[in-house]
């Protein structure tokens, strides 16, 4: 198992470099530079700025410099936020997004799995009602759910601040808003696959053995969790790296909003910082998901060459 994980991590390193290299060149081919939006820059000032940030070097030279700095953990200065390094900024924003995303992930997992399990085991009306709720959760966009929650819980009931990121309780509404869609998806995925497993012959064998319904469901869920785990890899990465919509609605200084604005500003170094965070999360969660799949299913373990 450890050997498998190490092998995956070693293979992930070149993938990571390919991603950042591609992004490095891609952002520079997009028309427009970091200082285009500043008003009334004289050509001399622009040239001086470009020279200061090394943007007048040829691309390969810039790339080599970038790698050199990266090896020291330095992502360079931000072009937009003067006097702040990208490393520092990204760390600050990522912390906010991680807190928000972590809370949302926890909510989505507990609510999603619980609803999915109840819906798969229950029958008739309860199951149908839960299915309808999860379908609604999938269809409702965050920019509708967020304002509705604000309207009810802060404007009417006054329990929470409408927006901002100052107090501990400020995490509640945005994390619920962010979690809703994922919880609904997880519920649907888990319900469908659990119901499929419960209809299989081996579940009948378990009943014929004299197992309780709960035990039968638990044994079936080991196979039923696989689609959920596969879905969780990109979903968790998406939640933890911040959501533009949710951060905008609740005015939260997170990475998601930052990523979009840095792209619009052609803030090259900042884009690289955000991309790296995202790439690392995606890669790590995919490795974790594959390990989890192997732990759940011995057949998958065999295919992946995992030995315990």
């Amino acid at each position, binding site marked *: 198992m450890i050997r498998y994980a190490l092998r995956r991590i070693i293979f992930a390193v070149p993938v990571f470099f390919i991603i950042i290299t591609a992004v490095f060149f891609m952002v520079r081919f997009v028309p427009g530079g970091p200082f285009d939006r500043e008003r009334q820059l004289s050509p001399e000032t622009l040239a001086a700025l470009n020279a200061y940030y090394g943007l007048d070097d040829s691309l390969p030279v810039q790339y080599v410099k970038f790698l050199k700095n990266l090896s020291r953990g330095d992502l360079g200065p931000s072009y937009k936020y003067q006097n702040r390094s990208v490393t520092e900024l990204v760390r600050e924003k990522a912390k906010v997004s991680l807190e928000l995303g972590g809370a949302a992930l926890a909510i989505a997992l507990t609510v999603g799995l619980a609803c999915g399990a109840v819906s798969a085991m229950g*029958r*008739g009306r309860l199951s149908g009602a839960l299915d309808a709720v999860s379908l609604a959760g999938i269809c409702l966009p965050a920019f509708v759910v967020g304002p509705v929650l604000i309207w009810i819980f802060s404007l009417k009931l006054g329990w929470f601040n409408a927006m901002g990121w100052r107090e501990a309780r400020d995490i509640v509404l945005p994390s619920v808003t962010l979690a809703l869609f994922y919880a609904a998806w997880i519920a649907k995925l888990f319900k469908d696959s659990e119901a499929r497993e419960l209809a*299989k*012959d*081996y579940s*009948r*064998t*378990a*009943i*014929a*053995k*004299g*197992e*309780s319904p709960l035990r039968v469901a638990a*044994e*079936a869920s*080991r*196979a039923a969790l696989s689609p959920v785990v596969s879905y969780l890899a990109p979903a968790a990465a998406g939640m933890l790296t911040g959501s533009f919509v949710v951060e905008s609605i609740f005015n939260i200084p997170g990475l998601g909003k930052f990523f979009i604005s840095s792209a619009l500003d052609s803030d090259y170094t900042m884009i690289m910082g955000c991309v790296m965070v995202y790439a690392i999360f995606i890669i790590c969660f995919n490795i974790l998901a594959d390990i989890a799949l192997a732990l*759940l*299913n*011995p*057949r998958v373990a065999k295919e992946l060459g995992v030995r315990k």
Partner: protein
Amino acid sequence: MSMLSVENLKISFKSGGRVTEAVKGVSFHVDKGESVAIVGESGSGKSVTAMSLARLLPRDGSCEVSGRALFDSEDIFQMNPKELRALRGGKIAYVFQEPSTSLNPVFSVGEQIAEAVRLHRPEVKDVRACVVEALEEVGIRRAAERYSAYPHELSGGMQQRVMIAMALSCRPRLLVADEPTTALDVTIQKQIIDLLREILKNRGMSMILITHNFGIIRGLCSRVLVMFRGRIVESGPTEEILYNPKHPYTKALIACIPRLGRSGERLVSIDYEKIDREARELGYAY
């Protein structure tokens, strides 16, 4: 008093407003240590009859069961969930047709048997040893090693042996084997039948064996019930039914048994119109 006695069992399925009567009033009994075969063609209601004995049929309202099934004078159809769980596996154990799908693919075979032992024999201290013993009893070599094998690592015959070991591990009074050899190839079929015969002899257990193959029941089952369209049309000692069948359907079934030594298998197709006509003439009521 028989160990199991089924009286006027009726089973019907509702789907989309249509009701199908799968079993239309069946009565039979199984004595202690006795082995009874239920023979009949596909769709005649053998499996649903067997399933109803541990209430394994769908409980979502789509299936209706009536009649009585007395096991040690207790009506299975009146049991509460707790009593049913004690009955399933503990008193009546099942072996199904398809061993490859009847085992949970993500747990080792040993664990799956161990679960049954833990459920029904809480007094067993060393569950693992008990499971290994059960595996050895059904002729699995290197049983201690095989304990941690997953179902997909075993052949079909081995998987069926595991199913049998699981069924036997809780010392049931009655084993219900629903076409236990149909999914296996011929040489393995014979091994499994021999295994069942030996176990029955050693344990003094009762068995209901479901098959549509008259060939395998000789020397294994003492009595035969012939099912046709949801009814038992004929029953009696195996030899008598084999050599002196009364009902036209039974005659047709026996004519279908492929004989050894013949060149090529003779596949007789059953002429239902003729059976119906003859049955009416003989006074059988449908």
